[in-house]
């Protein structure tokens, strides 16, 4: 009987082994739960760089990650990029001293500066210029030729306090004696310039006002975009969006940052980082360069 029993047991063991699925697995008890620890206070406080949502969060990471890494490396501490959905939230971060440095929009700067929350650190220089424009774009097959042709169009604003994306088109409407609600059939916010361009290219919006620098960069990256959208109106030159620091940033850090930015183009790593940002170099900026912006902000009351 012994041999038969052994054979049967072996057969059953084999069947059981085959019936089991896959290889043995690690045991993890999901019911063993613990409260998560509060984020420990970092031993070294990282350099926090805010980037306003000129581009989508992903686009900003692509463009600014190298610069952040460079600055962190030079300052001997980790650097991290901080993003928020709106310009206003970034302004709040600066006002509360939660970030050490920020790339902001012009009208956001004007507002923050005039509330004594931030100071100019440096401005980008592109092809020797420190200006940019608001470009009114429509789809390539649109019949609209001027801004006033956009009556009853669906219009995409970028950020509620974006200068090129909201303040300037509102100013134009004000001059026409119109309001966005009356002139356009519908408006919406995209919260970034690249998404506004895509909205027009994809036909979700009939027109949008965008940062000329972002548009140039987008077309440089995707030349096919030039065939899908066209500029029907360009604003006068405005001071370029600046790099700012909170007013209460320690002077030493401020000076270190200023020095690093202004000399970036001389650093071996500099050209690649600057090319990623689409600018030539950082130079000193003057607050007076933003008086034109300031006037429009005053005139429209947006961002005050």
């Amino acid at each position, binding site marked *: 009987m012994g041999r038969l029993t052994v054979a049967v047991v072996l057969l059953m063991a084999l069947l059981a082994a085959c019936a089991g699925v896959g290889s043995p*697995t690690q045991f993890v008890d*999901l019911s063993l739960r613990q409260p998560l620890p509060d984020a420990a206070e970092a031993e070294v406080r990282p350099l926090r760089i805010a980037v306003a949502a000129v581009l989508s969060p992903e686009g900003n990471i692509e463009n600014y990650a190298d610069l952040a890494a460079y600055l962190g490396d030079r300052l001997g501490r980790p650097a991290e990029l901080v993003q928020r959905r709106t310009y206003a939230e970034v302004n709040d971060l600066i006002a509360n001293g939660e970030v050490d440095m920020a790339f902001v929009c012009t009208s956001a700067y004007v507002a923050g500066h005039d509330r004594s929350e931030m100071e100019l650190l440096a401005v980008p220089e592109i092809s020797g210029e420190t200006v940019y424009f608001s470009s009114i774009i429509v789809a390539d097959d649109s019949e609209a030729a001027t801004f006033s042709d956009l009556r009853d169009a669906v219009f995409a604003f970028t950020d509620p306090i974006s200068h090129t994306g909201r303040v300037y088109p509102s100013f134009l409407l004000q001059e026409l004696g119109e309001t966005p609600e009356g002139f356009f059939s519908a408006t919406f916010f995209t919260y970034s310039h690249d998404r506004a361009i895509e909205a027009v290219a994809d036909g979700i919006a009939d027109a949008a006002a965008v940062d000329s620098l972002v548009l140039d960069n987008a077309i440089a990256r995707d030349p096919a975009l030039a065939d899908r959208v066209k500029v029907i109106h360009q604003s006068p030159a405005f001071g370029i969006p600046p790099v700012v620091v909170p007013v209460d940033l320690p002077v030493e850090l401020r000076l270190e940052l200023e020095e690093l930015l202004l000399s970036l183009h001389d650093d071996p790593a500099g050209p690649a980082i600057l090319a990623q940002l689409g600018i030539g170099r950082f130079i000193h900026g003057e607050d007076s360069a933003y008086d034109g912006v300031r006037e429009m902000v005053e005139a429209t009351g947006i961002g005050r």
Partner: protein
Amino acid sequence: MRHPGEPALGPRDAPERFGDWVDRIKRTATGFSVRTKILGIVLALTTVLGLAVTWQVRSVMTNVLISELDNRGRSVASDLAARTVDPILLNDTYRVFETLDDTVANHPDAIYAFVLDPTGSVVAHTFGEEGFPTELLGLNPGEGTTEIKHNHLTGEIGRFHDFQAPVLDGRAGVVRLGLSEARLTDVVSGITAQMLVTTLFVGLAGVAAASLLTWLLTRPILDLVDTTRRVGEGDLGARAAHWADDEIGDLAAAFNQMVTDLEANRETIRETETARTRLLEQLITAQEEERKRIARELHDTVGQALSSIMVGVEILTRGGDDDLLRKKDEIQSLSRETLEQVRELSRELRPSVLDDLGLAAALDRYAQDFEVRYPEISVDLHVNLSGRLQSTVETALYRVVQEGMTNAMRHSGAHTLSVLVTQSDGSVQTIIEDDGSGFDPLEARRNGKSVGLHGMAERAEMLGGTIDIESGKEGTTLYVRVPV
């Protein structure tokens, strides 16, 4: 029980033990009835087949469903990673949580989802307020992974799959998604149970069908067994019923034929036995008759003659010369006659010519005597033999011809008798033909009036020969073949 001195089981013992096993299995297997064997085979086949198919389907289904679960997990995790990029980068923790929570709520297999930032801290999770199973954090693949990773894990809830999808190539963190196998296991278990139930039903149906089959198969066999027993007990009228036109039906038919033949043989034996008894009685009677005839013959002829001779001799002693001479002639004549009568008697009893000159001469003499004695019948005799035969054969054939011719003379009223004796190919063939009225040989044998016929047959059979009778209105022909 092995004694201490006994050698351990050697390799030579193994085949013997194996042989014992084979014998035991054979005895066990052959010990069951056909019904049990067929039922056992059907039951074993359905069970083995059912279990094998169930197992196969179960493992194939499990593999397919797990692979499908993996694919789904990868696509859901990858979708989650894409949808959480913006809220993670914008520090919108609530939207991250909402996205995770919606996914887990809308996906039946999902048991958890959470997001880790690049440093490995939990950004948002769906485990609720009781806390977080920190064991899961140990499985973090680390930063910079651009591919979706996938772990098979087991927990208190059973097996589950953990997917790790990097957000923005890991720069924004990692989305983790847990999918449970519970639903999959339920589906597989349900199907397994269904298949086992089906197997059970098929097995029962198989047993029912096999029962019917074995009943159909064994019923005629058992009937045949019963009939055999009855025949064995002497009931030759018993016949096996014919159930079907199959091999068993053929067997029953052959069996019935055998019993029929047996019955006929027994009838023949009984008839032969009866005839033999009658023959014995008649032989005794005939012997007595023959003795009476010889006694009467001796008394009437030889006795009378001898008395006359004695009287003549008495007269001789008393009488004169003339008388003497006359008496001497009388006595001489009487003695001659008496001698002739004694010879005649002797020849009839046993013709010495058969012993001296053989069958051909004896038959020739007999035919001549027959024609002399019965002038109304003409005998045509042809004997063609290569030489003398064995004495027993010659006697038997002589008696057969004698009996056949006597029968024809007595019963058929024939006018012509033809007798042909030829030798060829190791046998002697004798044909006795008459042009008489004929008779029914079977009827004659049955009613016991054919002692002569029976005697002829007995004589032929004793020598290993055969006898055939053809009889009709044109006469009777008797064929006797005896091997030599």
